[in-house]
């Protein structure tokens, strides 16, 4: 289900598999407990749980060092984190991260990292990349389209 995806989001923050597993457990329990408060008319379920996961990961590692890292996050995107810690051969997914890395533009990886993984608002991300808001939106759209082509999602 979603656990693997959430784990990826958490791991992008926490960067340590054992700790990320702990956070994931907390997140799962939290989702279970807060399920009544989810309002389908307000947004996607997946968006809702990703938010919970992101916040839990941020809360857990809200140390000074972490904050600093968020500021110059340019150094570390979700692909680097994975590549840094694991032998890519052990990933079991059909299209491995390696394929994404080869086919997605670095610009796209950066944008997806900021907006999706790091949970930046589009204003924050635009500022971070020093591009206008409109450009950010269209560029991000182009990146997701590229991703969809890659995954064959119409």
């Amino acid at each position, binding site marked *: 289900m979603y656990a693997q995806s959430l784990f*990826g989001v958490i*791991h992008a923050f926490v960067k340590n598999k054992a700790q990320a*597993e702990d956070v994931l457990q907390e997140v799962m329990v939290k989702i279970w407990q807060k399920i009544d408060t989810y309002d389908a008319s307000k947004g996607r379920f997946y968006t809702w749980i990703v938010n919970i996961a992101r916040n839990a990961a941020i809360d857990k590692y809200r140390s000074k060092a972490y904050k600093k890292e968020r500021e110059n996050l340019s150094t570390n995107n*979700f692909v680097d984190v*994975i590549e840094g810690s694991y032998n890519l051969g052990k990933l079991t*997914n059909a299209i491995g991260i390696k394929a994404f890395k080869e086919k997605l533009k670095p610009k796209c990886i950066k944008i997806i990292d900021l907006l999706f993984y790091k949970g930046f608002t589009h204003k924050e991300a635009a500022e971070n990349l020093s591009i206008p808001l409109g450009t950010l939106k*269209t560029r991000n759209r182009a990146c997701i389209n590229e991703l969809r082509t890659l995954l064959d999602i119409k």
Partner: protein
Amino acid sequence: MSTQEYIDSGILELYVYGSLSAEEEKEVNEMMTKHPEVKKEVEAIEEAIIRLSNSASPYLPSVNYERIKQNLFKKETKVRELSKTSAMTYIGWAAAILLLIASGVLYQQYNSTQNEIQVVNQENEKLEKENTHLEEVQDSYATIMTFLSDENTEIIKLDGQENFSQAYAKAYYNKDSKEVMIDAKGLPKPPEGMVYQVWSLKLDPLTPTSVGLLEEFTDNDSKLFRVAQAPTAEAFGITLEPAGGSKTPTLEKLYTLGKV
């Protein structure tokens, strides 16, 4: 704005990320209910994101799912177990009491340790003071030694006079620096309220100048006294004077005298 333009604006991707404001989200929700193609687009974006993050995720062992399940299960059943068995209540109370006793004991231990620390600290302070004192003493001895061994320092024997023939003393006089030290080991302990006074004398005409008192005579174990400089000494004399000293020497109480 047509629905296609709306889709192309890129707002739906941000919607899926969760990086829109509540207002903007509301707008997208409305668009989705009105236009099925918007909803379809959102679902496609979401799928892409989910698959990307699935791939960009370390392998999650099934053990972890078990742990999550257990955690959820535990939370559900815990309450029932406690209320069902009264044995649990007793164990709970026993544990609470034990904890209370343990904290009491620990608190006492903490207090007594604190006291010990205080005592040790006080002792430390005392030792430090003693140490400083000893260092001072050593320093002063070192100064004395330097003074005594200086080539310009002369030893002047001050012999016992008349009634005090048993008494003797020595003056160390540095003709260069004009400094004077008195060795008073050969003087008897001064009676209460009295003090020895040291005089530097010019002989012709006889002019005595006080160079200081041998204060705290009994406490000074070495009986070595540093007195004031004597610029024009031709002789040194020691008399016994009332406490505080006198302006002129009481000659009847002249204990020792010696010429430079």
